[in-house]
């Protein structure tokens, strides 16, 4: 097996984690990774020697994700979804998640895709600001403001969830 392919294989677990944080649904996330891998293999020649495979692959996957999210918004694809399909997607993921994990994953899904990606890149994937800005293709200042707003938003949603839970308990 050639070195490039071995390096790509080694990045799959990280790509899957990033995809899962963007999309939540396990199959949908793996579909995104698959699209990313297919595109990467077609463009193997674009991968410059010495460039980190992780950064190269994350850049490809991020572009796939953001392009599609934009198209969905512009074309109103979501409007074409029958209610049932949406409901099916809302089913909780099959793996057992603790309540705390489920709440934070739900909250993460609720913040805008741009902020979600920026926050996840840095807070979960451990990229530096410079690396993340490079992968996302935005200036460092934009990245920072997305991270800050993303964190604020996430915390607000979690506070909101906690408040609602408290209200439910009181009602019992």
């Amino acid at each position: 097996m050639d070195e490039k392919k071995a390096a790509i294989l080694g990045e799959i677990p990280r790509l899957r984690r990033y995809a899962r944080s963007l999309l939540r649904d396990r199959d949908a996330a793996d579909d995104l990774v698959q699209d990313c891998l297919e595109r990467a293999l077609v463009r193997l020649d674009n991968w410059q020697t010495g460039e980190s495979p992780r950064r190269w692959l994350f850049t490809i996957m991020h572009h796939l994700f953001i392009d599609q999210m934009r198209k969905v918004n512009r074309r109103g694809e979501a409007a074409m979804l029958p209610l049932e399909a949406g409901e099916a997607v809302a089913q909780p993921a099959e793996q057992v998640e603790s309540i705390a994990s489920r709440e934070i994953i739900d909250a993460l899904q609720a913040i805008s895709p741009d902020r979600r990606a920026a926050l996840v890149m840095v807070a979960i994937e451990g990229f530096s600001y410079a690396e993340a800005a490079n992968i996302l293709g935005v200036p460092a200042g934009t990245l920072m403001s997305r991270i800050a707003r993303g964190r604020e938003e996430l915390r607000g949603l979690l506070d909101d969830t906690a408040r609602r839970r408290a209200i439910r308990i009181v009602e019992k």
Partner: protein
Amino acid sequence: MIRRDFSERDIHMALDGELPSDERAAYDAWLDANPEMKAKSARFTADRTALRAAFAGVLDEAVPARLRKVVLGEAPVKAAVPRSRWWLAAAAAVLLVAGGLGGYLAGVDGIGQEDPAEDRLAEQAIAAHVIYAAEKRHAVEVLASDKDHLQTWLSNRVGLKLVAPDLTANGFQLVGGRLLPAGESKAAMLLYEDDKGERISLFVTVESAENAKGTYASAQDGPRAVYWLDKGYGCAVVGSLPREQLAVVAKSAYGQLLAGLAS
């Protein structure tokens, strides 16, 4: 020790390992002197721990065979056309979460920025519902007993062929309707009630230029709107029913409205 003013921005930088090491001591001193900032930093740190924990398990999962095959060339590599439909799931998830957490999202800037038209429709519909559904004797201008007149009048004023949906199968009877302002144009509001006195309303307006669909709530415990926008009209069903029940009623109402428009 470096002396400078710190701000919230530095909390993020410190958390992300981007604070220069020679500023760390001064930053820590600033945190100690600002309990509010210190609490904020602690919350963000805890959130990051929770985020990492929530996704940590993914790294230990076995890599699905289909992904290995793509790389190892055991499956034919297709042109890089996204044939998978993962993004539909993403879009649906956005809509659903926005419905569930709408109370919070409504107050956050930047969230609804792509789709102000549907937010506006949903907000108008909810506002009308909050005011009129609470009225005992003056909820509507024309009663359901005068249904033919109600439909003709509202159709003429709003400017589209309006047939009041029959929601008896869902347990709701038409109470009546009224004419309302909606931005620069007009809207028809149809009010329904079940035998327990629970009310829902249908808000229909011609003012719409885009396609959209979703749910929206403007307050945490307030009524929720299920809305559709299509070329030339927008419709929202508002009520405080459980989410699934409201979705069912809304779908029935929308189907009949569409049939009425086309009749």
